[in-house]
C-alpha cells in the first residue's frame, strides 16, 4: 500500500490549484515504503495494549466495590405509577435509588434539558429500556436477584414510532440559495428519489463502563470508558449538586467510541455516582453487550428525499432536498446531528439553486446520538446515490458527472460559503478512479450485464442471468466533511490546551482529548516535540483527569488533530520562545535545567476564531466549517444472482486530510472508517418492533469480520488548511461518509438495480432484482421531462412482513423471560446456574 504525501496530478485530473501551503510538517514527502513505521513514533500506549497491561474500566480494581444495575422500562411509552417490591426478598442487603434520591436536578445535562437521570414516579416513560431505578449490592448474584424482585408498575400511553407522524420537532433548518423555481424551469431532466437509512450501532468492542468512587469530602470520582471528560463533569455537577472539584472524571483506557461514548457516559456516570452515594462504596456499572445495545444511542435513522434538475450535459441546475431524522425519545445531540446532515445534504457539488429542508422529530424509541460522521453519512448516502442515478439516466459515467459538478476553489456552497482554499474534490476523485481502474472495470462489468441480458431465471426480473451465477460491479462516490465543529461551535466552546515545562524539568501536554484508538496520545507529543526541537519521547502526556487537565473540548467531530493539535502547536511555540529568551540557549539544551531552576512554566492556549470565518446561526448562512475534508471511494462487489448475497471485494479509499501527521495512524482511520461504512451498507441492520431493538445481541446484530471485509487500499491526499498551524483538517469521520453509496453504486453496476434503503441485504437486493427499483428513462427525454422513480414501493422488507414474527430473537431475550404477565428487562444468567 502506497501513500503519496505530496499532491500528485494525474493525466486526467484538472490542474490542482496553487496552494500557499505551510511547509511540510512531519511526513517525509515522497513515496513511503513498507517498514516506514520506523520513521514515526510508535503508538504511545501500544505496548501496554499488546501485553494486556492496559487498564480499561472493567480491569480497574476498587476493593470493596459493589455492583450496580439498572431497572429499565419494558414499555415504549407509559406513565410510571410506582414500584412493587417482593417482600420475600431481603432488601437490607442492597441499596435502591429512584428519582426521589437525586439531590440536584433530575436532568442529564446536554443541549436540551429533556432527559431525566431516572424517570420519577408519576413521570412519563418515553422509550423502551429507559432507566427507572438503580440497585447496588455487594455481589453480582444479589444485585441480579434484587432486580428481578423490583417491578415497575406502569400505565401504557399511546406511542409514536413514525418520525414523519410525530408532532414533536427537536430541530428544523432550512438552507436556501438561488432561484429555486427557475432552476427547475430550465431542466433537461428532473429526477426524484427517496432514500432510507436505519439505526446503526457503534459497536465498540468494549461496552460502556463506569465506576464511581465516593470521596471522603463528599465529592465523587468516576473512572470510565468515555470520549468527553468535561461532558460527564458538567452532568455530574448539575444532577449531583457538586462543584468543579467535587466532580472528578478520569478516563480509563477506552476500547473504542465512534461517538457511542460521546454523550452516553454522562447518564451512566450519574447512575454509578448515585449508587455510590447511597451505599458509600465504590460502585461498578459495567454493561454487558445486551444492555449496551438495548439501551445506548445509535446512528439516527433518516428519510431523505431529493428532487433534482439537471441540464443535458449533467450540470446540476437545482436541488430540492428534504431530510427527516428520527431523534428517538430525547433530544441528546440531535439538533447538531441534523445540522451537519443538512449542511452536507447537497453533496460536494456546485449548484446555483438549492433548498434543503431538514427536521428531526421525537419518537418513542431509545434516543439516537453521536456516531462517526454525525448526520453526514445519512444525507451523503442519499445525495451520492441520487447523483449516480442521474448519471445513469443521462448515460453518463459516475466519474464524468462528478467532473462536471464537484466543487472547485472559488465555488459557493448552499450557505453562501465561498470555498477559498483546500478544495481537493477533484484530486481525490481522480486518484480513486485511477487507482481502482474505474473506467476499465466499468467496461468489463458493462459487457457482463450485456451478456446476461435476454435470458432470465428470475421471474419478471429485468436482470437476465444466462448461466452466470454471479455479477461483478464497481461503484464510485465522493464526499465532503466539514472539519471540526459546525458553525460557531468552536468559538462558543473556547477550548484550552496547555503545554507545561514542569519543575522536574520535563515537558508535559495537558488536554482533555481522549485516546480511544485513533492516536491522540501519539500525535500530540509528535506535534509538540517538533515545535520544541526535541524527540517525541521527551514529551509526556498528562492523564485525562478533570482534576489536572483543562477543558480542551470533547473528543469528537474529527477536531482533535486540527483544533486541539493546533492549540498545542501554538502553546509549544510560546513555551519555546520564553525558554530560549530567558536562557539564550536552544530549547532542547536548556529546558530541563530551566524547569528545575525556575519551578516550571505553563502555557495555556485558548481557541481563537479563525480569521475571516464567520457563520450566522440565525439565518444559516456563512462559513459552516472553517474547511472541508474530501474523500472518494471506489467499491467492487460480487452479487450472487440466485441468493442476493453480496460480497464487497475491494475498496479504494482516497481521503484528503489536510496534512498527514502520522501515516500509519491516518491510514488506520481511513481503513477502519471504510469498513464501518461497508458494514452500514451491507449487513448492519437494527430491527425495531414496538420501539424495541429486536436484535440487541452480538449474535444477531452483525458487524463485518475479517472475511467479510474487503481488501481496502487507503490513499492519503494533502490539501492543507492554511489557518491551522499544521494544515491538518481531521480524518476520523471522513471515510464513514463515502463508503455506503459506493457499495450501492457497485450493486447497481453489477445488476442494474438501485438499492435505496440501507443496508443492502440479500432480501432487498432480490426485491430490487425482481423489478422494484429499475430506472429506465428515455435517453432523449424532452425538455422538462420528469422521471419519477417508484422507490417507496417494493424494496423494503419491513420486519412486519417477515414470516417469523421475531426472526432475530435470541433465546434469552427479555420477552422470553415473561413471568406472570410482567415483562422484565433482564439479562442476568440464572443465578442458580452461575457462580458469578
Amino acid at each position, binding site marked *: 500500500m502506497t501513500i503519496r504525501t505530496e499532491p500528485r496530478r494525474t493525466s486526467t485530473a484538472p490542474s490542482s490549484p496553487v496552494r500557499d501551503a505551510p511547509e511540510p510538517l512531519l511526513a517525509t514527502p515522497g513515496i513511503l515504503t513498507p517498514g516506514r513505521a520506523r520513521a514515526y513514533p510508535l503508538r504511545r500506549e501500544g505496548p501496554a495494549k499488546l*501485553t494486556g497491561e492496559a487498564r480499561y474500566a472493567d480491569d480497574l480494581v476498587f476493593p470493596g466495590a459493589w455492583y450496580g444495575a439498572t431497572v429499565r422500562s419494558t414499555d415504549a411509552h407509559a406513565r410510571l405509577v410506582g414500584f412493587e417490591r417482593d417482600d420475600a426478598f431481603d432488601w437490607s442487603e442492597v441499596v435502591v435509588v429512584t428519582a426521589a434520591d437525586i439531590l440536584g436536578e433530575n436532568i442529564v445535562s446536554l443541549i436540551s434539558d429533556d432527559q431525566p437521570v431516572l424517570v420519577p414516579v408519576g413521570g412519563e416513560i418515553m422509550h423502551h429500556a429507559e432507566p427507572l431505578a438503580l440497585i447496588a449490592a455487594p455481589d453480582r448474584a444479589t444485585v441480579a436477584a434484587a432486580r428481578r424482585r423490583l417491578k415497575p408498575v406502569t400505565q401504557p400511553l399511546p406511542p409514536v414510532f413514525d418520525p414523519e407522524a410525530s408532532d414533536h420537532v427537536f430541530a428544523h433548518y432550512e438552507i436556501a440559495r438561488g432561484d429555486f423555481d427557475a432552476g427547475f424551469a430550465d431542466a433537461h431532466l428532473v429526477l426524484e428519489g427517496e432514500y432510507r437509512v436505519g439505526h446503526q450501532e457503534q459497536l465498540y468492542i468494549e461496552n460502556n463502563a463506569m465506576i464511581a468512587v465516593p470521596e471522603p469530602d463528599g465529592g465523587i470520582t468516576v473512572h470510565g470508558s468515555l470520549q468527553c471528560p468535561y461532558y460527564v463533569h458538567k452532568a455530574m455537577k448539575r444532577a449531583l449538586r457538586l462543584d468543579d472539584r467535587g466532580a472528578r472524571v478520569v478516563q480509563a483506557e477506552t476500547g473504542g467510541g465512534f461517538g457511542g461514548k460521546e454523550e452516553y457516559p454522562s447518564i451512566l456516570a450519574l447512575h454509578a455516582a448515585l449508587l455510590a452515594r447511597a451505599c458509600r462504596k465504590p460502585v461498578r456499572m459495567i454493561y454487558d453487550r445486551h444492555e449496551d445495545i438495548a439501551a445506548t444511542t445509535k446512528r439516527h435513522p433518516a428519510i431523505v428525499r431529493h428532487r433534482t434538475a439537471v441540464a443535458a450535459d449533467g450540470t446540476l441546475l437545482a436541488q430540492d432536498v428534504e431530510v427527516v431524522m428520527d431523534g428517538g425519545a430525547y433530544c441528546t445531540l440531535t439538533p447538531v446531528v441534523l445540522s451537519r446532515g443538512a449542511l452536507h445534504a447537497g453533496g460536494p457539488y456546485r449548484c446555483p439553486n438549492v433548498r434543503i429542508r431538514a427536521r428531526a422529530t421525537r419518537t418513542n424509541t431509545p434516543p439516537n446520538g453521536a456516531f462517526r460522521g454525525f448526520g453526514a453519512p445519512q444525507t451523503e448516502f442519499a445525495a451520492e446515490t441520487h447523483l449516480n442515478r442521474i448519471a445513469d439516466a443521462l448515460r453518463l459515467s459516475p466519474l464524468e458527472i462528478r467532473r462536471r459538478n464537484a466543487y472547485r476553489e472559488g465555488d459557493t456552497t448552499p450557505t453562501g460559503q465561498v470555498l477559498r482554499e483546500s478544495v481537493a474534490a477533484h484530486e481525490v476523485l481522480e486518484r480513486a478512479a485511477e487507482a481502482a481502474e474505474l473506467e476499465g472495470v466499468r467496461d468489463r462489468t458493462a459487457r457482463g450485464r450485456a451478456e446476461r441480458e435476454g435470458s432470465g431465471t428470475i421471474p419478471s426480473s429485468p436482470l437476465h442471468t444466462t448461466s452466470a451465477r454471479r455479477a461483478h460491479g464497481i461503484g464510485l462516490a465522493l464526499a465532503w466533511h466539514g472539519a471540526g465543529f459546525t458553525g460557531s461551535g468552536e468559538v462558543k466552546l473556547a477550548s484550552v490546551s496547555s503545554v507545561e515545562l514542569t519543575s522536574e524539568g520535563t515537558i508535559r501536554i495537558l488536554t482533555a482529548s481522549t485516546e480511544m484508538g485513533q492516536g491522540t496520545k501519539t500525535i500530540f507529543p509528535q506535534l509538540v516535540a517538533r515545535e520544541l526541537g526535541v524527540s517525541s519521547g521527551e514529551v509526556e502526556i498528562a492523564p485525562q483527569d478533570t482534576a489536572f487537565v483543562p477543558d480542551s473540548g470533547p473528543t469528537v467531530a474529527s477536531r482533535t488533530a486540527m483544533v486541539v493539535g493546533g492549540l498545542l502547536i501554538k502553546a509549544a511555540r510560546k513555551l519555546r520562545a520564553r525558554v530560549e529568551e530567558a536562557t539564550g540557549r536552544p530549547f532542547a539544551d536548556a529546558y530541563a535545567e530551566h524547569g528545575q531552576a525556575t519551578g516550571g512554566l505553563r502555557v495555556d492556549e485558548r481557541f481563537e476564531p479563525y480569521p475571516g470565518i464567520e457563520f450566522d446561526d440565525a439565518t444559516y448562512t456563512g462559513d459552516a466549517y472553517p474547511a472541508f475534508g474530501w474523500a472518494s471511494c471506489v467499491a467492487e462487489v460480487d452479487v450472487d444472482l440466485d441468493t442476493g448475497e453480496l460480497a464487497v471485494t475491494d475498496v479504494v479509499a482516497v481521503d484528503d486530510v489536510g496534512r498527514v501527521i502520522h501515516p500509519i495512524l491516518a491510514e488506520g482511520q481511513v481503513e477502519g472508517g471504510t469498513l464501518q461504512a461497508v458494514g452500514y451498507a451491507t449487513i448492519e441492520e437494527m430491527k425495531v418492533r414496538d420501539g424495541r431493538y429486536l436484535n440487541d445481541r452480538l449474535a444477531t446484530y452483525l458487524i463485518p469480520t475479517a472475511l467479510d471485509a474487503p481488501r481496502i487500499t487507503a490513499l492519503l491526499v494533502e490539501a492543507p488548511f492554511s489557518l491551522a498551524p499544521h494544515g491538518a483538517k481531521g480524518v476520523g469521520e471522513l471515510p464513514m461518509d463515502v463508503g455506503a453509496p459506493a457499495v450501492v453504486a457497485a450493486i447497481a453496476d453489477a445488476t442494474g438495480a438501485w438499492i435505496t434503503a440501507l443496508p443492502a441485504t440479500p432480501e432487498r437486493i432480490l426485491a430490487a432484482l425482481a423489478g422494484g427499483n429499475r430506472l429506465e428513462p428515455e435517453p432523449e427525454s424532452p425538455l422538462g421531462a420528469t422521471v419519477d422513480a417508484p422507490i417507496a414501493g417494493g424494496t423494503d422488507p419491513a420486519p412486519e412482513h417477515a414470516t417469523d414474527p421475531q426472526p432475530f430473537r435470541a433465546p434469552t431475550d427479555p420477552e422470553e423471560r415473561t413471568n406472570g404477565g410482567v415483562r422484565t428487562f433482564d439479562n442476568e444468567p440464572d443465578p442458580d446456574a452461575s457462580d458469578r
Partner: protein
Amino acid sequence: MTTYRFTLNEEPVEVDAPGMRRLLDLLREDLALTGTKEGCGEGECGACSVLVDGQVVDACLVPVCQVDGAVVRTVEGLGVRRPDGSVALDALQQAFLEAGGAQCGICTPGMLIAARAHLDAGGRTNDDAIREAIAGNLCRCTGYTKIVEAIQLAAGSRA
C-alpha cells in the same frame, strides 16, 4: 468448590473454584489477569480468546472444569521473558506495534492469541489464510488491513 490444577503461562497453578465458573472470570477476577477481555459474553467477538492446549477458545464459554490438567496461555504469556525477569514484546506483538495492528486495543489480546495459534500451527501466511484464522475475532477500529499486515510481518521475521 473443587480444586483444579493447570499450567498458566508456563507456571503451574492450583485454584479452588466452582467447576462451572467461566474461565474468563477465573482469569480476570481470581487470578488478576485482566488482559483477556469480555466483549459479548456469548462467543461472538473473540475478545476473550485464550489458548487451551494450543487451541483458540473463547474463555467466556469455557468452564473451569474443562481446563483441569490443560496448558493455558493468555496475552500475558505471549511476551519474551528476559533473564532479569522483565518481559519484552515478542515478534508478533512488535509487528502489531509497528504495522498499526492495534488501535483501541480491546480486541488486541484475543487477536494476538488467534494469530499466535495460527502461526504456531504452521498456518499459511497469505491474506486469505490469515483472514480465516482471525475470523472469530471482531475488530471495530482497523478494518483488519493492518492486522493482516502485522501477522504477515511477524511471519516473515520469524522465518
